[in-house]
């Protein structure tokens, strides 16, 4: 501690260690946040249901989505990424997951909403298995913190049967 640079070096090093401790503590407190997500999503209309020239089934849907994600937000939350996936089983794959719609919630004020949306990404099967198929709509969310690890979770919101015939 005999020179200016020596003191400055000591101070910066110790300040950086404490900064790491602060971030770790903020991240640690997130573990005590037990969120309760309320969400609902349902298919209200089949816009198009056809077989592509390549032989794969393709469906286009209109969804009614409402959710309340406010409990996911803590002071350490940067943003929340959500996506709605259609999950179903076929003989080839035990689990097919197709993302139909996604959204980034930037803050708590925008975490409660209701919307009617057409699927952002088409529901295309690997093959021709969709007629009369039952699929689950599952809401996945990834909570991105300012410091610490990303938290991911999911919730099944509803199930739906596709029609037996193409439109």
């Amino acid at each position, binding site marked *: *501690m005999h020179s200016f640079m020596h003191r*400055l070096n000591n101070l910066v090093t110790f300040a950086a260690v404490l900064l790491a401790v*602060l971030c770790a503590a*903020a991240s640690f407190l997130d573990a005590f946040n037990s969120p309760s997500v309320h969400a609902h999503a349902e298919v209200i209309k089949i816009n198009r249901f056809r077989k592509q020239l390549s032989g794969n089934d393709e469906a286009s849907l209109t969804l009614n989505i409402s959710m309340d994600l406010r409990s996911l937000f803590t*002071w*350490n939350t940067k943003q929340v990424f959500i996506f709605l996936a259609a999950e179903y089983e076929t003989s080839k794959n035990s689990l097919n997951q197709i993302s139909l719609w996604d959204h980034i919630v930037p803050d708590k004020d925008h975490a409660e909403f209701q919307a009617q949306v057409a699927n952002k990404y088409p529901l295309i099967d690997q093959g021709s298995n969709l007629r009369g198929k039952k699929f689950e709509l599952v809401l996945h969310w990834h909570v991105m913190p*300012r410091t610490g690890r990303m938290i991911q979770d999911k919730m099944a919101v509803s199930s739906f049967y596709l029609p037996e015939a193409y439109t």
Partner: protein
Amino acid sequence: MDWQGQKHSEFLMQILLVVFAVVAFAVGYAIESFQMMMLIYASGVFLTALITVPNWPFFNRHPLKWLDPSEADRHPKPQATAAASKKKASKQK
């Protein structure tokens, strides 16, 4: 900066930083603002640097006390040239 001053400045630096970190965390958590925590901590680090890094007069209140010059007076310092030649002579031996 004298010895006491160095000790004080290091102690002051550690205490101040820890206090600012604790205050920043408490305030940030209370008002749920991560940004406010970082701002308080950053200003705390800046303030601590201002207090403990420069060589303030506060850190120079305990100058080193050397021995009385009476001992040195009793054994007068030989001439510089004479000392140099002596050293040379001893080396050559």
